[in-house]
């Protein structure tokens, strides 16, 4: 049953896409691929994507490391750490292009900084630099979340040991901390590289025509030229590096190269890990980054309540009136889809996770891998694959809500799968056996013991599906129709029509809803009975 669902919504679309890309008149052919590679535009897009990914990986990992190091080593007061966390959480839960929109407000032709402050006219915000900056600000929190536990684990004893041997702080950092963090850094780099490679919305808004990247090229190919085959081929070009990165990262984490360090995240060292000067510098750097994020979001909020940003700064609520009248359909559709997908995705994640962790059947690993595929692949690929697979009979689903819900469920439930697997690995099998020995059958055991224990995973998975249903765009932009439209797609339309006010208002609305729901789920999770030790590892990352 689960297998057939996975086959239908993961395997089938991908193979349909491959078919589209590599079959000419029913025969396998490399022709389309070669002709795509022959076009300078497409070659540039490929090169640009790789360059952008690498740069985002390097810069984002650096900033993420800076944040993680500051949070774990500077003995900051709790309040400060929470502030850092809040600033990094914002980009994770916003629609992927909020940063880009705010960038336009800030640095665009009529931007706050470029026009108002510096008085530069006719600036061009579009291109590599701004895309890079926006993506870094959007995705570095992933690196921060990945690196923080690594640095926390390295801390304490090992560093104290090195200090006690007479090393200076800088020397300890250079010879102990940094080398031990290398696997973690590599992992963070790969995560960011993948995120940037897959990012669709940021380049669509900021890259401009002089800097094409693969996802936007594929999108234009399909929506502009109605060339499904070309889109499929470009998707394949995108898939290759994405798959390589995914496998590399899996290999790295799976082989346990990862937190091989002491493992004991003991109390923070009583010694200051850094000197006063370095500490000031670190805190200042982090504060700058955090403040720029907050500044961008404040700008977004401001733009949503003025008549016309850059021209008329009188306060008004008219943009909100617009989104709740003209935009109401998008809001309604998005909420329906999100609330439909939420429980389904949560349940699906827990079920697959349970089977992967506890099931005793052949192909468990294959099931895990397949369930991860849609998550690991860039959304553009998934969207195009769904479009190709479900556009025509035998299974014509495009245009409906079902296809969008299915896309979200299969794309974003892997968080639930992974959390469930992680939780079940912490939960001793003996607990379920104890239930069996006390006379409970396998169903009763699942219902009364296993299910309550994986409830945190259920809610985490459900939360992620909800957040992504509200904010994602890269895959579903190919699946919307007149009947079912999404807020994110409307925002994009508003941006291209230069009605910035409603775009800002929509974004603020989405962020508010997402925050509300995440807070609610967080509160619920805290109220769940059970030992505090079973922590939730909700991965909010990914576009």
């Amino acid at each position: 049953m689960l297998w057939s669902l996975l086959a239908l919504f993961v395997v089938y679309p991908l193979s349909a896409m491959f078919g589209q890309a590599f079959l000419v008149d029913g025969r396998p052919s490399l022709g389309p691929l070669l002709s795509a590679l022959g076009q300078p535009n497409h070659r540039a897009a490929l090169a640009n994507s790789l360059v952008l990914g690498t740069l985002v990986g390097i810069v984002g990992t650096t900033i993420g490391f800076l944040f993680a190091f500051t949070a774990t080593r500077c003995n900051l007061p709790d309040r400060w750490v929470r502030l850092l966390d809040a600033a990094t959480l914002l980009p994770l839960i916003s629609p992927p292009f909020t940063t880009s929109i705010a960038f336009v407000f800030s640095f665009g032709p009529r931007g706050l900084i470029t026009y108002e402050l510096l008085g530069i006219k006719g600036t061009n915000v579009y291109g590599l630099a701004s895309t890079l900056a926006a993506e870094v600000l959007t995705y570095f929190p992933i690196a921060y979340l990945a690196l923080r536990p690594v640095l926390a684990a390295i801390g304490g004893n090992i560093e104290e040991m090195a200090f006690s041997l007479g090393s200076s702080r800088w020397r300890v950092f250079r010879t102990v901390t940094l080398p031990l963090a290398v696997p973690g850094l590599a992992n963070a780099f790969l995560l960011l590289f993948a995120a940037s490679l897959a990012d669709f919305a940021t380049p669509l808004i900021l890259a401009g025509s002089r800097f094409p990247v693969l996802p936007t090229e594929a999108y234009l190919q399909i929506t502009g030229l109605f060339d499904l085959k070309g889109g499929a081929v470009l998707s394949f070009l995108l898939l290759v590096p994405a798959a390589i990165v995914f496998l590399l990262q899996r290999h790295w984490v799976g082989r346990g190269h990862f937190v091989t360090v002491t493992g004991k995240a003991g109390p923070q060292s009583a010694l200051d890990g850094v000197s006063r000067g370095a500490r000031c510098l670190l805190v200042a750097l982090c504060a700058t980054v955090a403040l720029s994020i907050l500044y961008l979001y404040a700008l977004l909020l401001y733009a949503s309540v003025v008549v016309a940003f850059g021209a008329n700064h009188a306060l008004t609520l008219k943009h909100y009136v617009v989104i709740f009248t003209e935009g109401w359909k998008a809001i309604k559709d998005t909420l329906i889809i999100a609330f439909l997908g939420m429980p389904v995705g949560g349940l699906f994640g827990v079920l697959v996770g349970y089977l992967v962790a506890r099931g005793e059947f052949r192909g468990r690993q294959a099931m895990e891998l397949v369930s991860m595929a849609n998550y690991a692949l860039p959304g553009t690929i998934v969207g195009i694959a769904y479009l190709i697979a479900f556009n025509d009979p035998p299974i014509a689903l495009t245009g409906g809500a079902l296809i969008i819900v299915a896309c979200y469920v299969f794309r974003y439930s892997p968080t639930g799968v992974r959390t469930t697997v992680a939780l079940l690995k912490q939960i001793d099998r003996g607990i379920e056996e104890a239930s069996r020995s006390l006379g409970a059958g396998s169903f009763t055991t699942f219902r009364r013991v296993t299910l309550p224990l994986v409830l945190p995973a259920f809610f985490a998975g459900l939360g992620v599906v909800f957040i992504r249903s509200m904010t994602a765009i890269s895959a579903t932009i190919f699946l919307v129709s007149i009947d079912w439209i999404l807020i994110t797609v409307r925002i994009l339309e508003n941006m291209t029509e230069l009605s910035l006010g409603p775009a800002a208002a929509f974004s603020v609305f989405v962020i508010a809803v997402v925050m509300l729901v995440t807070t609610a789920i967080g509160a619920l999770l805290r109220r769940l009975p059970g030992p505090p030790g079973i922590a939730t590892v909700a991965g909010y990352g990914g576009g």
Partner: protein
Amino acid sequence: MAANPVSIRLVGISARFDHRVKGEVAAVDDVSLEVAPGELLTLLGPSGCGKTTTLRMIAGFQRPSAGRILIGDHDVTEVLSNDRNIGFVFQNYALFPHLGIFENVAYGLRVRRMDEAAIRRVVGDVLELVGLKGYERQMPHQLSGGEQQRVALARAIVIKPRVLLFDEPLSNLDAKLRVQMRGEIQRLQRDVGITTVYVTHDQEEAMAISDRIAVMSKGVIAQLGRAEDLYSRPASEFVARFIGRANLLRTTVLARDGARLTLGMAGQRYVVDAPESGPPVGAVAHAVIRPETILIGPADAVGAIPGRVVTRTYLGEKTEYTVTVGADTLQIVRIGAAETERFEPGAAVGIRLPAGRLHLLPEVGT
């Protein structure tokens, strides 16, 4: 409590696993065993010898790859563990972390759809029995290890199982608590009279608690018997060394007289009980003797074997020596010896092996 204790019979059970490197390995290999009704039998053995696997097969958590399991007169080999009516106490307690103490203990009763009033009464009684009255509303993680272990015990016995199974229930507790808890488990088991299989790798615990002990080695039972039998008449060098400390001596068979053998060692003669198929006259035979039964005295004592002290360790209630005798090195323990008795390293001494304390091993090896 249990009206009619039942027996447990294992008939030639095996558990085979696919091992990545070694291919198929038998964790338990053709084991047969009968646990008498109401008895507490311990499976004792080193790590990896198959104790847990045996216990899990009795519990029904794992299917034997061959053989049958009978509880009472019922063949339960194909019966699911939830229908076997067993109580299982896990090494790491395996309490339900999301349920309070009361609900943990009540779990099995709720599954059996007992009515609420009865559940309150029975759970109250059993919590009283294990000394945890007043803990009903606590969560498992708020309890100490010993308390958690008692909850696990209460949860297992409250359903009045026909069989109680323990897998190293005390190994997570500190030494003192271990001694106290094993006393409590024993008392409880006697009181309720449930047939019990207890797994441990601690020989002292096994001896303290069991009616009989099955010593396991590499998936088979090396010897089964009361603690006294295992200690004074080990069937193999493995058992001799695993239970307590043992000196292994090389002797020569000098004469045979029905059920008695005369062994020669270092010019002395010893008469011992012979095993059924004893070694022929003239053959080399191995005998064991426990360190605390060897006598040690001055070198010029009449009839003593001459030896030389290598080390002496004073431990308060006892003193331990190692003494070389010819090519052999013997461990000797003197308990409650006079304080004036001192044989310093290097001193020549005379030792004596009381004939009745020498035990001939049926075979050497395992």
